[in-house]
C-alpha cells in the first residue's frame, strides 16, 4: 500500500491504538518536562557551589536524593540539567540535518543527471565512515563546542536524509501532477517545494524521528568521549566518564543514575520513532 492511500485520520487512529506509541511518548514527555522544570524540582545549583567539595561522594540521602558526585555537586540537579543539554542539542541537530537533507534530496531527485551522480558519490564516500568518527574528526579540527556538536551531527545526517528524500522524489517526479505543474509553466522551485514536498512528508517525518534517536545516542557518546562541547555544562555522558572509575569502590550513584537516564530516554524516543514508522509503512 502506498502512503497516499492511507488517510491522515486512519493513521492517527492507528497511532493512538499503539501501545509502543503511548509508552515511548510518556517516557519522552516526562524527560521534556524534567528538562524544562528541572530548576523547580531541586533546590541545588547544578553547577555546584564553593562549599560542595566538603560533601563529596555522599551516598543518596533525604538531603541529596541521588547523592553527590566527586566534586560534591547534587547528582539529581545535574541529571535534570543534563536532560536540558541533550534535549536541546539532539533535536536541533536533527532539525538542521532534516532541512538540509530534504532540500538536497529534492534537488538531486528532481533534476537527476550529473548533479545527482556527483552528489551521490560524495555522499557515499561520506557514509562509509561511522558518524561518531566523522564527528570526532571535525570537532578535533574546529575545537569541541556545543554549536560545533549540533552542526556536525546535522551535517552527517544531511546525506542520510537526502538519500531517503531523493528516492521518494524520484518516484513522485514521474507522476501526472508534476507533469501538469510543468505544463502550467511552474518553475522548478515551485514544483519541488510546493508540489512534491507535501507528498514526501511521510518518509521525512519517519526519518526525523529515527534520526532523533541516533542524535541522542551520538551526542551522549561524544560527551562521554570528551567531545561534547562546553565541559562546564552538566551532561550525562560526561558525568559517566568522570565517575565510572569510582564504581570499583562501590560508589555507584554518580554513574548509575545518569546511565539509567540515558537508557530510559533513548528507549523512549526510539519506541516513539518505531510506532510512527510503523504507521507510515503499513
Amino acid at each position, binding site marked *: 500500500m502506498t502512503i497516499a492511500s492511507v488517510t491522515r485520520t486512519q493513521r492517527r487512529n492507528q497511532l493512538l491504538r499503539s501501545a509502543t506509541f503511548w509508552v515511548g511518548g510518556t517516557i519522552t514527555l516526562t524527560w521534556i518536562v524534567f528538562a524544562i522544570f528541572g530548576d523547580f524540582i531541586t533546590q541545588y545549583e547544578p553547577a555546584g557551589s564553593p562549599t560542595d567539595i566538603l560533601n563529596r561522594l555522599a551516598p543518596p540521602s533525604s538531603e541529596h536524593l541521588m547523592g553527590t558526585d566527586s566534586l560534591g555537586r547534587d547528582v539529581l540537579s545535574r541529571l535534570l540539567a543534563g536532560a536540558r543539554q541533550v534535549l536541546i542539542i539532539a533535536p536541533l541537530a536533527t532539525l538542521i540535518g532534516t532541512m538540509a537533507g530534504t532540500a538536497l534530496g529534492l534537488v538531486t531527485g528532481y533534476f537527476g543527471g550529473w548533479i545527482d551522480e556527483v552528489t551521490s558519490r560524495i555522499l557515499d*564516500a561520506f557514509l562509509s565512515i561511522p558518524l561518531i568518527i566523522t564527528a570526532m*574528526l571535525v570537532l578535533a579540527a*574546529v575545537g569541541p563546542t556545543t554549536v560545533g556538536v549540533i552542526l556536525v551531527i546535522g551535517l552527517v545526517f544531511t546525506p542520510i536524509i537526502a538519500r531517503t528524500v531523493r528516492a521518494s522524489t524520484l518516484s513522485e517526479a514521474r507522476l501526472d501532477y508534476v507533469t501538469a505543474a510543468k505544463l502550467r509553466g511552474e518553475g522548478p522551485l515551485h514544483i519541488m517545494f510546493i508540489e512534491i514536498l507535501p507528498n514526501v512528508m511521510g518518509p521525512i517525518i519517519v526519518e526525523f524521528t529515527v534520526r532523533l534517536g541516533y542524535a541522542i545516542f551520538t551526542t551522549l557518546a561524544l560527551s562521554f568521549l570528551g567531545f561534547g562541547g562546553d565541559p562546564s555544562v552538566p551532561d550525562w555522558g560526561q558525568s559517566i566518564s568522570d565517575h565510572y572509575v569510582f564504581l570499583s569502590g562501590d560508589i555507584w550513584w554518580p*554513574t548509575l543514575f545518569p546511565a539509567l537516564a540515558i537508557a530510559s530516554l533513548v528507549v523512549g524516543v526510539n519506541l516513539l520513532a518505531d510506532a510512527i514508522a510503523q504507521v507510515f509503512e503499513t
Partner: protein
Amino acid sequence: MLRFLLRRLGLALVSLWLLSVLVFTGTNLLPGNVGRRILGPFATQESVDLLNARLGTDRPLLTQYFDYIGGVLTGDLGTSVSFARPVTELLGTALANSTKLALLAFVIVVPLSILGGVIAALKRGTLVDRSITVFGLSATVIPEFVSGIVVIVVFAITLGWLPGGAQAPAGSGLFQQIRYLILPAIPLVLVLFGYIARITRAGMIDALDADYTRTAILKGLPRRTVIRRHVMRNALLPTIAVVATQVGYLFGGLVVVEVLFNYQGVGRLIFDAAQKADFPLLAGGVLVIGVIFQVATLVADTMYGVLNPRVRLGAES
C-alpha cells in the same frame, strides 16, 4: 556477474578517492590552522609558525594534497605527531587488536541474532515476537558505554567472573585473550543484535507470505522442509548484505568500547589522535576504516551474487 563486480570495484575506488579529499579538506581547511590546533591557544605565534614549517603545513594546500595522496598510494601515511612513529606502524598493531575484538563480537552476534529473527518471525504477533523485537530495539539504541558499564559492574566487580579491562597480559594464549575480550564484546553484540534480528525477521516474514511458500505448503511438504528449503534460503540472503554493512558501524562502536575498556585498538587510536589533534594519525585511521568498509560491502555484494542463482547465472536484472 564479472561486469557487475568490476563496476562495484570502480565505484568503491571512486568513493575512497573522494573520502581522501574529504578527510584532507576536513583536517586542513577548517578554521584554526594545524599548528595552532596542536599547540593550543597559549603558544606563541613563533612556535606555531615553526611547527607548521616542520610539518609542512605552511605550504599551498594543493601541494600538500598531492604530497599526501602520493604518500597514501605508496603506502606511506605520514608520521604521527603525538607518538612520533609512522602512522602505518601504529595502525597495523591497533588493527590486529581491533580485528580480534570485532571478530569475537561477530561470531557471537551473527548466529544469535539470526536465530532471534527467525524465531520472532515464526511466532509472529505472539508475546515471544514482541519480547524479541522490543528487547532488540532497546539493546540497539542504548549507547555502548552504558551497557558496557552495566556489564563491568555485574560481571567484573560484583561477580568477579571476568576481567574488567580488555588488554590481556603480554604473551597470553588464545583462550586467555578471549576471556579478556568477552566483556568488551557484549556492548557491540547488544547494539548489533537488534538490527540484524530485525532485518532477518522482516526477510523471513516476506518469504513466509510469498506465493511460493503457500504453493510449497499446499503441495503437502512438511512445515520443517518448507521453512528450511523455501523460506530460510530466500530470507537470509538480504541478511548477509546487512551484516556486512554493519562492519562500518562496528568501528564507530569500537571507539567507545576501546576507550571504556582501555584496549589498544583502532578506535582507541583515533580517539587519542582526535584528542591530541594528531591529524596525520587521524586522517590515516579514517582512511583505513573507509577501506575496510568498502572491502566489506564489496565482499557482501560478491557473496550475495554467488549465493543467489539469479545473479550467479547471469540473469540481467
